[in-house]
């Protein structure tokens, strides 16, 4: 097989410059015009395409002074053939909440990364960070210095709190039930030490969605999922409902029939919602954004435990606090988070996510440990098996219960 280490030809990758969708190959090529790192990356990637095999090795421990997280070490397994990317470490830079930027902020990042790295990025990584893709060990400190001087800092990696992220929320969404940007920024600032210095059994992710539409996939991708919701009645503008119907929406079929609890009725004149049975799924509001809005008594459902499958199977977060008001300084939430971290830090096994711990010790015991009262909102249904660990029993001759 032709070694593409030397010659700049990339016939296979070139195929990926065709077609209407913007091409990552074009991005690497453009950047390669002033970055040798990218030339080697192109060649190595072409080789991976030929061989159908990656060429990266486990990263050792690399990072910036005083931090344990924020950098992913990476080395290729053919350093002699691709010397410019012998090291190719990633720097995770904490994005501004909601991924908002000024053009100047973006240019600042670009300038720093052009000076100290490959010039390639991911906008953004799956956890939400700005991913500065590929540099050598010696450039880490200088890059970090310039980033902090420009007001940026690193995100999380390893067994620490990962970079919290949030949906666009109140900045551009009429459905936000709490200030997702503010809480994300607040928690990130409040827990800087936990973010930068891995001291947990494993990673801990926080994602903040302003409403049950969950536009940051928090229920699937965050150890703590904060999902906005409301307690009072959906706000209805009957005139706009009629307008939506007039505009062609089949309210009975498309809205009422899709309500999970069938608690909306439409008689052609008026939309009637039985809010006591509304489970705040958002569908009717989604379908008629001009006519319906969440109620005014707003807050969030706090859920815990989501993760990917490795290794006990994937988890979705489950309800920990059915409804919590969220106003700065978010003391109630921060206390809860710290109680969870304390218990997890003490009893979590190495590489055991909090959701796995919760299952291992049992939700009931977990709640006791973090001092949260059990409520039926936490479960889909009570136990089906009769294997109850009753905790007390009478001893002969005594009347009151005995702790065993």
């Amino acid at each position, binding site marked *: 097989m032709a070694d593409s280490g030397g010659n700049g030809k990339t016939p296979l990758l070139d195929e990926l410059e065709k077609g209407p969708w*913007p091409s990552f190959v074009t991005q*690497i090529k453009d950047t390669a015009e002033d970055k040798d790192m990218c030339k080697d990356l192109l060649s190595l990637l072409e080789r991976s395409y030929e061989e*159908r095999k990656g060429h990266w090795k486990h990263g050792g421990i690399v990072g910036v002074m005083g931090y344990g997280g924020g950098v992913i070490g990476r080395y290729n397994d053919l350093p002699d053939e691709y010397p410019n990317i012998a090291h190719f470490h990633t720097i995770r830079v904490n994005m501004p909440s909601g991924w908002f930027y000024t053009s100047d902020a973006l240019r600042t990042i670009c300038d720093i990364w052009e000076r100290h790295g490959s010039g390639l990025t991911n906008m953004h990584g799956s956890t939400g960070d700005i991913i500065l893709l590929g540099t050598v060990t010696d450039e880490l400190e200088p890059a970090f210095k310039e980033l902090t001087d420009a007001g*940026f800092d690193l995100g999380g990696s390893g067994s620490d709190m990962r970079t919290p992220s949030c949906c666009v929320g109140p900045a551009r969404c009429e459905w936000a039930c709490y200030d997702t940007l503010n809480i994300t920024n607040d928690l990130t600032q409040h827990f800087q030490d936990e973010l930068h210095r891995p001291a947990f059994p494993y990673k801990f992710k926080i994602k903040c969605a302003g409403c049950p539409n969950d536009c940051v996939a928090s229920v699937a991708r965050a150890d703590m999922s904060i999902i906005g919701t409301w307690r009072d009645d959906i706000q209805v503008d009957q005139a706009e409902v009629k307008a939506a119907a007039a505009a062609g929406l089949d309210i009975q079929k498309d809205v009422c029939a899709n309500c999970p609890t069938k608690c909306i009725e439409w008689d052609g004149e008026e939309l009637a919602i039985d809010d006591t049975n509304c489970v705040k799924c958002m569908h009717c509001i989604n379908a008629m*954004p001009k006519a319906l809005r969440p109620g005014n008594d707003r807050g969030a459902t706090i859920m815990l435990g989501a993760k990917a499958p490795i290794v006990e199977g994937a988890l979705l977060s489950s309800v920990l606090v059915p409804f919590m008001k969220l106003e700065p300084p978010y003391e109630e939430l921060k206390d809860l988070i710290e109680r969870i971290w304390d218990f997890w830090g003490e009893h979590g096994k190495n590489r055991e996510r909090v959701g796995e711990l919760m299952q291992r010790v049992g939700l009931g015991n977990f709640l006791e440990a973090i001092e949260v009262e059990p409520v039926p909102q936490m479960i889909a249904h009570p136990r089906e098996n009769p294997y109850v660990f009753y905790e007390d029993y009478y001893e002969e001759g005594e009347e009151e219960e005995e702790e065993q």
Partner: protein
Amino acid sequence: MTTVTERKTDIGPPHYEKMLPPVIKANYGKWRYHELVKPGVMVHVGESGDKLFTVRAGSPRLLGVRRIRQFADLADKYCDGYLRFTSRNNVEFLLTDDAKIDPLIADLKVLGHPVGGIGNAISNIVHTQGWVHCHSAATDASGIVKAVMDDLFEYFAETEVPGKLRIALACCLNMCGAVHCSDIAILGIHRRPPKVEGGLNKVCEIPNVVASCPTAAIRPTQVDGQPSVEIDEEGCMFCANCFSVCPALPMADPLNDGVSIWVGGKVSNARSEPRFSKLAIPYIENNPPRWPEVVESVRNIVEIWIKNARKFERMGEFIDRIGWPRFFEMTGIEFTKEHIDDFKYAGLTYKRSAQLRH
């Protein structure tokens, strides 16, 4: 040359307020409603009556500094210098003057960035590093994403579909793309047990390695005098957890690595509760540069959904309604032993009722 004392640390990210355009500051938390203007363009109207136009452009996510600077220039030209990125890695330009929408779209076209993905559309594919940067990849990420988005382009940029359809890709079972809850998920998989490299004991703690295997398929052994491990191939289901803890157990294997396709997951609470994706196609071989079989398989599933789903109906909700047997029938996907769960909760996935279509 700087000394430690001067180093700034733990300053956290820049405050988001510095990044918000005036119209957002003015209407923050006071938006009234939004409307789709045309594909890729929506308007949010504030209680004040102010309007904010969003133009969403597709992005490969992997961006060079040149392109980012070009985005910055466009933001200056049309948006007073303000823009954002989405949770699916698209770029959103934030305008107050609707007259500037079409010129912006035209400039984006020149740069090669389509506008779309809003509302009932197929948006960008959440994905991961693949061969570009990760040691753990069973396939590439960016390449498959490019090929699939090229093929589904019309549903991003032009044609409306029944509801939202979210596609995600992860290049190994770690699932950094969180593909476990997507309408359609593309997942890189290994199908061959790890090779045991010589001198493993020098790189890894044998007990840790043994403990890392969920199926207890790793046993300690001696290889020419050296402590090492052996793999019970029958017991291996290729999760690569052993490789995550020990580099001397490489899993990557050109002959057997490939891709599996999953369907029917969702995360929103709209209508039905969040749910995991389920296995549709157990294995498709890696066929770079454009993975035609993967592209074709995804297209097939998408088309069947578009033709048969009701309005608002997500993939999983659609399959709920027609039933899995019909899904396999319609897609022509063969049902095999691999589809039947045999992990922890397997029993609960068996059909425990006589409610069947015949």
